[in-house]
């Protein structure tokens, strides 16, 4: 199975470049929901109808030899649980698609475009860029949309815009998300209050991994909720300005750490680096916390032998399925933690 090539994170654009504000913003993602006009929505399709949708979408996309060059199609029905989980951890597909045997995903060779087929909607076009750059992500997603629309009749209504399976996505069908790394605001317990404010601006904030207010790796995701009655540009602008304020407060909070506070932080960061480079067992949750600390250390110039991109890589490789897929065998949780610790140490000391 060609899925193995996805383990090579060096080929994932957003991980290995540094876009605008990438000291705080890991990535920007745009998703466009689209549907075929003449076909029932995926939840009403039988196996052969669903296959036909996959074929039509794949043919339409590959009609553009530039965007689709070396793109891969993965059918959910052909993948193992671990492989599907890996695609989820690497943000190529949603957990909902992973549960859907009728689903498929097309991933472009530069890993910036992924097109989910037969998720909740027939099409979910996604583009990811490094840093705070949702405009670029939207431009590319919109270009893919144009390519597909050349060949496919897309469900669109004059008054309601793009028609989607769920009324929460109707209109533009756009969901813009930015992934933020907020270690100091989290440490100072300022995120909760900020989230309540953001909720009132029509945006949603969630911890990217983890439970409750505990966001593993201090990674958070902000996205728009409203899709109808506002243009794509306005939705992006609104999100950008809120993200801009959060970025400014995280930077301010980092600068404000002086004297004893700064010393304690430097100590914490250096200890975390020590643990990552020395421990023999690491759970995903633990690893994420230490990686977050080291990433902050790199951003603050405390740790000098690593680049921010190295830590982006580690965030992905610390996930439960990545290790599973690299070692290609059933492992006990203890073995997994052992292999994870070895793998991360190897990456850091390379």
């Amino acid at each position, binding site marked *: 199975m060609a899925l193995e090539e996805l383990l090579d994170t060096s080929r994932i654009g957003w991980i290995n470049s540094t876009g605008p504000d990438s000291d705080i913003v890991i990535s920007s993602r745009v998703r466009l929901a689209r549907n075929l006009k003449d076909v029932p929505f995926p939840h009403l399709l039988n196996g052969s109808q669903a296959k036909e949708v996959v074929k039509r979408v794949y043919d339409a996309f590959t009609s553009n030899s530039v965007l689709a060059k070396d793109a891969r199609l993965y059918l959910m029905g052909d993948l193992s649980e671990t492989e599907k989980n890996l695609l989820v951890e690497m943000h190529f597909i949603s*957990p909902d698609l992973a549960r859907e045997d009728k689903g498929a995903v097309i991933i472009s060779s530069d890993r910036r475009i992924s097109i989910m087929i037969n998720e909740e909607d027939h099409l979910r076009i996604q583009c990811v860029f490094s840093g705070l750059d949702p405009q670029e992500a939207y431009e590319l997603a919109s270009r893919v949309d144009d390519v597909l629309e050349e060949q496919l009749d897309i469900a669109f209504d004059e008054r309601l815009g793009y028609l989607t*399976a769920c009324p*929460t996505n109707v*209109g533009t069908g756009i969901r813009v998300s930015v992934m933020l790394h907020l270690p100091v605001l989290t440490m100072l317990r300022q995120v909760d209050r900020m989230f309540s404010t953001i909720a009132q601006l029509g945006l*949603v904030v969630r911890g990217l991994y983890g*439970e409750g207010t505990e966001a593993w790796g201090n990674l958070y995701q902000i996205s728009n909720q*409203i899709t109808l*009655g506002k243009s794509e540009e306005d939705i992006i602008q609104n999100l950008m300005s809120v993200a801009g304020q959060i970025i400014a407060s995280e930077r301010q909070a980092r600068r404000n750490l002086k004297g004893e506070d700064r010393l304690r932080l430097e100590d914490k960061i250096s200890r975390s680096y020590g643990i990552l480079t020395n421990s023999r067992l690491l759970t995903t949750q633990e690893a994420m916390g230490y990686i977050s600390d080291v990433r902050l250390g790199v951003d603050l110039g405390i740790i000098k032998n690593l680049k921010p991109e190295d830590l982006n890589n580690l965030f992905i490789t610390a996930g439960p399925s990545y290790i599973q897929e690299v070692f290609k065998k059933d492992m006990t949780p203890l073995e997994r933690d052992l292999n994870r610790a070895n793998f991360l140490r190897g990456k850091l000391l390379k």
Partner: protein
Amino acid sequence: MKCDECKKRPATVHITKIVNGEKTLMHLCEQCAKEKNIFSVSFNFDGEPLSMQKFLASFFEPMVSEFREKSQPLSCNRCGLTFPRFTQIGRFGCSNCYEAFKGQLDPMLRRLHGKTYHVGKVPRRTGGRVRIKSEIERLKRELQEAVNAEEYERAAQLRDKIRELEQKLGRN
């Protein structure tokens, strides 16, 4: 949205919990979220507003019971989905459902989005007339703003543009 746990405070923390591949959704207030200290790997994908079913069910409850009393529920003539079924599953069956349930959707859309009409991208190939129409709509709103701001020169320019597009629409 109220907190699932205490049913009192507003839910500001949205959790996707995955246990053995089974997903459960929880909407909690900050306090309850802190008290519930359960750890398992979970992953939030793209900030989907969740629990749509619950929302729709409560939103349409009065209307649905009204439908139940009638013998024939409203349904989509293309995919067969009935309106009560839509409120249960929170999803339409096909793009024609929007047309079939047209009379029922505006209050829900207003509640979800604050608006009931689309502004933004229009398909390139199939959107020809729609593109022009939406451009006219946009210019008309701009014209209204210009008039309100007493910018008459700009208003005159906008009016000419609108006439030009309307002629184009008439010719097509």
